[in-house]
């Protein structure tokens, strides 16, 4: 049901970094979604990746190309949109960038901060023929 590495680890596939497992999962999701519309092939896959996910785009795109081979997603374009890290202060409601990941409100110095963007990792939509 999934494309994750087997328990013995003696898989015949290339070296696995987290981008590899993520690429495989993206291909599975895209192929399944295309199947629901009886599409012939996937042209484009749009992914939203939060900054906190520490994904290296060039690696993800490389692995996506490899693992999509021999599927209807082969040759499709993987588009990565990065979601910036944004926090919201529960105290004063201020929204601010969490660039250095310091969870302190710049306005009221409150420490009850919710991350409202930057942790997501989603296949948004796909384009098919």
């Amino acid at each position, binding site marked *: *049901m*999934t*494309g*994750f*590495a*087997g*328990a*013995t*680890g*003696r*898989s015949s596939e*290339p*070296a*696995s*970094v*987290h981008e590899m*497992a*993520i690429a495989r*999962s*993206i291909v*599975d*999701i*895209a192929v399944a*979604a*295309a199947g*629901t*519309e009886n*599409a012939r092939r996937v042209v484009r896959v749009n*992914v939203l990746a939060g900054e*906190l*996910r*520490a994904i290296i785009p060039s690696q993800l795109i490389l692995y996506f190309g490899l693992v999509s081979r021999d599927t209807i997603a082969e040759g499709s374009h993987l588009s990565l949109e990065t979601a910036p890290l944004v926090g919201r202060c529960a105290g004063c409601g201020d929204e601010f960038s969490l660039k*250095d*990941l*310091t*969870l*302190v409100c710049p306005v009221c110095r409150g*420490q009850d901060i919710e991350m409202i963007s930057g942790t*997501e*990792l*989603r*296949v*948004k*939509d*796909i*384009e*098919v*023929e």
Partner: protein
Amino acid sequence: MKINVMTDVLEANDRIADGNRQVFDSNKNLVLNLMSSPGAGKTALLERTASALKGKLRLGVIVGDLETTRDADRLEKQGIPVVQLTTGSACHLDANMIAVALSRLDLSAIDVLVIENVGNLVCPAEFRLGEDVKVMILSVTEGDEKPLKYPVIFRESSLLIINKIDLLKHTDFHMDEAKANARKTHPDLEILDVSCVTGEGVSEWVDWLCRRYREKFGASIRA
């Protein structure tokens, strides 16, 4: 033609993790995902834990390692059930590897199951295994700035163990700095200072395990 998907990329992994979690819960296992850099002392901590937990809670371990069974061999000497997963080139464990490993353990004979992840501060934090709690080790020889460089793993962990405190005097590691850095990204982070060499802090760690076990199952601790 455009198809709306909006599916979480790690959903397949998370689904298997949820299945693992159900198996753990029905067997009354408190499950820890133990993460750190290579050489921070995961196996040394578990060796200490095996003897310190005796008579309190029954420990079991799943060890993930790129190659060799050295860690598993060390732990088997402690007389606890151990399953070794050799991940080959994978830099982390995922839920499916754990699901497969479960058939090799008698979970009904385990109270605390520790999954020793592959040594790495990046990837393991991304993949839920079905654990109750993530615990990470930072050793003082790694430097007090690590929480700033690898914020995700510090944010995901409920407990930070600072290990090798017996070496503090030989390093420029500042305890206050390290803790402040870790709490910048995770204000509620619990922190324990430990030396697996001298045994300092090990009893606090065992107390922490017993407390978490009681919190999960409410029951009195079995012998």
